[in-house]
């Protein structure tokens, strides 16, 4: 740490260390001054700083959760640098300069040509005019009044909207990592769909203008006003290499009367090598509030990456007749660990929820489904159906199911079923008989196993997800 910075950091806030900092990386460690530094750097209004400080204060009092079925060495939160201005990535001049290993992966996944270039970090204008593509998108969205920008931009441009909704679904002290995120988040996505607007296209971070490295503490806020609808895609099937080991994102969705929000994720972050070294810790809090009557929130996720995945995209079904959905495929291989599932909190009358979860474990990995279905005394006529299936490939891996079902209303109907199976010799034999080799047969069986979830994905994603699974499990089936 430079002496200048040290001095600056130790200064009291009021006398502005604001302007003069040359370095774009904050010193390691977390304290109030760092939070003030982040806030000042981003030129944030006072209420947001208060929000961050309140979160920090709560975080200090909290303990790291011990209940997830995952194991990892203790994280040193003081060894992380919580602010670094986005650095421009080194631009490559043509596809020839891209790592052939990465190209091979793209080939296998069937990623479209233009996306490959962007993902590999090739200066996009060399290959195709993505800026113009993005501009067209932006125009289209602006025409119908949709706001789609980075959250820092939204804080500057639409502070009232952000202030009204930020932290309403995931309160600052919700859990350890959400509190940490609330204190130090640096960027993320903001999306606002005004009354009665059906978003004309699937929104994706990929097409967001000025996409910056969102960093390890990403914050997403999506608001659907009365009668609006939107489908949002997060992540992509291409492997994402990242130097930050800990990722603690927060995603908040708010659906007002008759609004419909669909959130799809494909996560393929670096999972560590086959011996379990390295890989990303993905500790995410995702929650949707179906606030209005007849509102609907739908989560679809395909989780294949990260050394540890720890996330429970949830729905709070507050509005009458609101609907929550959760479709998930989680694949773990080698030494990956996944503890994922959902929470469906039924509060409003006649609320309905569906949970379909498919877990596939291979290698030495552990895959847990942990879900909660809670029917509050007010949720008369609530209905839930859950199905969690696991598949084990090999005898060194583990599959776990922890469904919590809490019912406080007599008129509710809750059903849960789970099964565990393997790919049967007889099934493989059947395929072999018809001239289909083992690898292909396994991939078809797994595809069938995950069909219910893949059907929920937008088309291009579904195709890529299928291939992604094939790729992930390559070589794990005898």
């Amino acid at each position, binding site marked *: 740490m430079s002496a200048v910075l040290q001095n600056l950091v130790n200064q009291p806030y009021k006398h502005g260390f604001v302007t003069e900092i040359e370095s774009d990386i904050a010193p390691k460690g977390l304290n109030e001054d760092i939070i003030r530094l982040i806030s000042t750097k981003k030129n944030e209004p006072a209420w947001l700083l208060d929000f961050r400080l309140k979160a920090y204060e709560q975080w200090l009092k909290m303990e790291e959760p011990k209940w997830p079925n995952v194991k990892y060495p203790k994280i040193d939160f003081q060894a992380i640098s919580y602010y670094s201005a986005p650095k421009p990535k080194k631009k490559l001049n043509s596809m020839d300069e891209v790592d052939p290993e990465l190209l091979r992966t793209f080939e296998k996944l069937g990623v479209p040509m233009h996306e490959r270039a962007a993902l590999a970090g090739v200066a996009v204008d060399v290959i195709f005019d993505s800026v113009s593509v993005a501009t067209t998108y932006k125009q289209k969205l602006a025409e119908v009044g949709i706001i789609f920008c980075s959250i820092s931009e939204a804080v500057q441009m639409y502070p009232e909207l952000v202030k009204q909704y930020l932290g309403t679904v995931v309160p600052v002290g919700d859990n350890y990592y959400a509190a940490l995120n609330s204190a130090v988040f640096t960027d993320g996505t903001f999306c606002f769909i005004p009354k009665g607007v059906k978003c004309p296209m699937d929104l994706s971070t990929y097409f967001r203008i000025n996409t910056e490295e969102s960093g390890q503490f990403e914050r997403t806020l999506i608001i659907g006003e009365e009668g609006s609808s939107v489908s949002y895609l997060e992540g992509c099937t291409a492997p994402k290499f990242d130097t930050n080991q800990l990722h603690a994102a927060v995603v908040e969705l708010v659906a007002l009367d008759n609004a419909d929000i669909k959130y799809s994720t494909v996560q393929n972050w670096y999972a560590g090598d086959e011996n379990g070294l390295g890989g990303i810790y993905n500790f995410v809090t995702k929650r949707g509030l179906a606030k209005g009557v007849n509102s609907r929130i739908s989560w679809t996720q395909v989780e294949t990456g990260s050394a540890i995945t720890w996330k429970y995209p949830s729905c709070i079904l507050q509005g009458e007749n609101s609907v929550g959905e959760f479709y998930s495929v989680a694949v773990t291989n080698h030494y990956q660990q996944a503890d994922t599932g959902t929470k469906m909190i039924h509060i409003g009358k006649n609320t309905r929820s569906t949970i379909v979860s498919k877990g596939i474990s291979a290698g030495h990995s552990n895959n847990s489904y942990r879900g909660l279905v809670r029917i509050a005394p007010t949720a008369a006529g609530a209905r839930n159906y859950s199905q969690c299936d696991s598949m*084990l490939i090999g005898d*060194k891996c583990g*599959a776990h*199911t922890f*469904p919590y*079902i809490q*019912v406080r209303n007599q008129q509710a109907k*809750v059903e849960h079923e789970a099964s565990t199976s393997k790919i049967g010799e007889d099934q493989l034999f059947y395929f072999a008989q018809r001239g289909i080799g083992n690898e292909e047969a396994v991939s078809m069986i797994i595809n069938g196993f995950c069909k219910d979830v893949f059907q929920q994905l937008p088309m291009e994603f579904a195709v890529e997800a299928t291939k992604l699974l094939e790729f992930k499990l390559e070589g794990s089936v005898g």
Partner: protein
Amino acid sequence: MSMVTSSSYLESLLQGQPQLPPSPLAWFNQLRASAVDRAGTLKLPTTRDEDWRFTDISPLAKLSFQPARAVSTLQAADVEGFYLDEAAIRLVFVDGAYMPQFSTQPDKARDLGLTVTDLSSTAVSSHGTVIEPHLGRHAGFQDNLFAALNTAFLHDGALVVAPRNAAVDAPVHVLFIATQPEVASHPRCLLIAESGSAVTIVEDYVTLQEGAYVTNAVTEIVLEGNAQVNHVRIQRDSPQAFHIGHCAVSLAHASRYRSVSVALGARISRYDLNARLAAEGAECAIDGLALISGRQLADTHTCIDHAQPNGISRQLHKCIVDGAAHAVFNGKIMVRSGAQCTDSTQSSRNLLLSAKARVDTKPQLEIFADDVKCAHGATVGQLDIEELFYLKSRGLSEIAARNLLTYAFGAEIIDRIPVASLKQRLERTVFEQTKRS
């Protein structure tokens, strides 16, 4: 619960323990002493403990319970109503103390080829080598305060040994009667089914009073190779009572364990059943029914541990919840690495009869082997409107139709009890209870 109450409270729980007469067997005394030590270091679980998340036993700590006093006034006529016609052998305990005058003579068991006796009697000394490897070895008390307390108070208790290849149809009836309010009793059973034997045991908890008391029971059941055990457990404690039960079952090669447990009584009841399929080809069927109303809480935690290949387990647990009662079920199925070809199904079905009734259920699978067939399911619901309509269209009144359906829901479990007179008695209880609501 605060720390302040727990230490002094625990002292009060161990009150009377030092007065227990020492056993002639050194290991027996040793076991008791280590349980006392262990109990001293453990705390009363709170709802912050995952295993007790939905069951708040803090009301237990608010009452002071004394060790039971010896009773002398009880007449045979007072307890005869609890006897089972089919039972050839009966062991009766009153407030935890063995009552030879109400129990059948050991000779009768011997004639049938069984050893059935009280744990404190001299007979135990002669069976020392048989029971030493088992008593206190299956129901571990390292992390379980209640098991530690029970073991600390180890004195009277039921011992049933079915020797090699002995097959006895008539059930052994172990009857625990509570007669005094504000006492704590620690019933204990040990059943050893030697290889090839077949035996039926009925563990029956009843009361002659309506007061508050604590029953803290521990049962250990050992099945050697090819043994078969039918285990029926009925809990009919007083509506003010606290019932904590713990049962540990160990299954050897190709043995078969069937259990039906029924919880009707107690203000707060908790039953932990751990079955370990410790050798290949073991099989167990574990069924349960909780029928509760008012402000009762019935909590059942089971763990079926498939440690070896080719095991089979079946489980059906049902709860009928009325009034402002609260039913909790946590069923864990563990399939350890190497336990290939395990076949396991589990089902938790819950019927809510009133607006204030509450159910928390968690069927749980933990699987570390790939060639297995495991499935579980859970449902929570009310009586089916169509089924009600069907019955009403055939002339049944709304109430009669409801009662019939509720009764049928519970009867599926009671039907699995292999003792006819007990089955009838329970069916009547269920019918009366549903009629009342």
